């Protein structure tokens, strides 16, 4: 981590609200994020903690440039980001290999680059001959293996990871966590979202805690996660009682 340099991505007071359309006559506004600010530095492993519905996934979509904020600004000095999540847009009718190539190309890689990487991806995924079977026949764990294998071979400047760790069987979980740890310790900039607080505590150097769409705390991962855990214990279901 190098906090003295310019942040790679800076978010200031960002807010995102969705209009929920009930019918033609009634819409309801729902704020996913209200006021979130934090910085990401080169080489950071930043964890984002918060309860379900705190706006974590929305935040990753903002950082990936998939959506833009309604208020506030995101200043970004990086070129490539890749969002890695379990719902990777696979086409169930196609085999794993084709899906992997297409996925990489959607993330910004050219076909020749993907053709060079594809054997490493297949090998890493440990899917064996299943890689030539349609993805619709895959179990959740197998999909996760494939998604994870693609992402670790992509090497984007900023890797955004949404709840992907802790999937698959024990063996693959160990392998993926090991790779993730290696990545997090390296120069790779990673933003990791999880509601498993201990994952963030173990893998990240810094953390941001989002509560009800607002940054509650930003700083050293262990400190932030400890405060978050204490808060959860003392305020069970606080969000849902509002």
């Amino acid at each position: 981590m190098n906090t003295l340099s310019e942040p790679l991505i800076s978010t200031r007071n960002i807010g995102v609200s969705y209009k929920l359309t009930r019918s033609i006559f009634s819409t309801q506004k729902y704020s996913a994020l209200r006021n979130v600010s934090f910085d990401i530095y080169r080489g950071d492993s930043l964890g984002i903690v918060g309860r379900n519905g705190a706006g974590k996934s929305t935040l990753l979509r903002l950082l990936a440039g998939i959506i833009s904020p309604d208020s506030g600004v995101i200043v970004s000095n990086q070129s490539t980001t890749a969002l890695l999540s379990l719902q990777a847009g696979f086409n169930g009718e196609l085999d794993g290999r084709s899906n992997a190539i297409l996925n990489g190309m959607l993330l910004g890689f050219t076909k020749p680059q993907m053709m060079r990487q594809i054997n490493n991806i297949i090998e890493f995924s440990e899917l064996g001959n299943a890689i030539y079977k349609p993805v619709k026949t895959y179990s959740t764990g197998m999909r996760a293996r494939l998604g994870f294998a693609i992402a670790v071979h992509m090497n984007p400047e900023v890797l955004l990871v949404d709840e992907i760790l802790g999937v698959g069987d024990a063996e693959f979980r160990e392998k993926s966590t090991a790779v993730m740890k290696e990545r997090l310790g390296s120069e790779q900039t990673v933003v990791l979202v999880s509601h498993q607080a201990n994952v963030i505590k173990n893998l990240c150097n810094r953390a941001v805690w989002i509560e009800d769409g607002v940054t509650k705390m930003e700083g050293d991962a262990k400190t932030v996660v400890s405060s978050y855990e204490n808060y959860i214990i003392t305020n069970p279901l606080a969000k849902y009682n509002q």
Partner: protein
Amino acid sequence: MRLDLLLYNVQLKLKAQISRSYLGCLWWIIEPIGVISAFYFVFEFLLKRGGPEYTYQLVIGVVIWTWFGATSIQAANSIHGASTLMQQVKVNKLLFPLSDVLELSFKQIFVFLLLLFFLITTKGVQSSWSYIPLLILVQFIFITGISLAFSAIVPFLPDTIYLIHIFMRLWMFCSGVFYTVDSISPSHQFLFLLNPMANLIDQYRTVLITGLAPDWLSLMTILIGSFIIIGFSALAIKHNDQTYPRLSLQ
């Protein structure tokens, strides 16, 4: 738009379709053979109506309309239907309608080959057929325009997909698929031919059956109009690049 991504996506869409059925890509030929032979059988043998010319007119009308109709309706839903993928990656949304246009146009190649085969065996080749690639190109560009326009609108108001279905059916009845421009009173023919699809179908018939050259002014007008529609639709899609992924969450 990245061409390698577009082409690979189209290739995979076709591959997925082949793997979904036992006969695979044979369906791309079986289906038009079925349509052409059904019309041929009914109008040549059962009804004995309108003479062989009428059967040709009808088959051409159906083949040309189906390419346009099927593509625009499928592409209309393309951006809206890609919501899961749009949540995952920052991708140029033009990929979705353009993939549909290319996918269905690729399959249309087989239909055109069959149509020509049908005309050669029952009627013979004509020198005016050299204009066919040009007509196909103009129609392709027109289809691209309408497909992009529909796909840009539907995510904002998903209900418009129903309107598009109704609209396309009405459009078909106004395009002379089952009748020719001659059956319209001369005073209304000009108005009728202002409809680009009626015009294109009439041009295909002129080139394929009558053996004459197409009407250049009409083709130019359709071409220019199509490019304007493509331009505006592509701008709208680009402008809403970060809006579309949100719309699917609302």
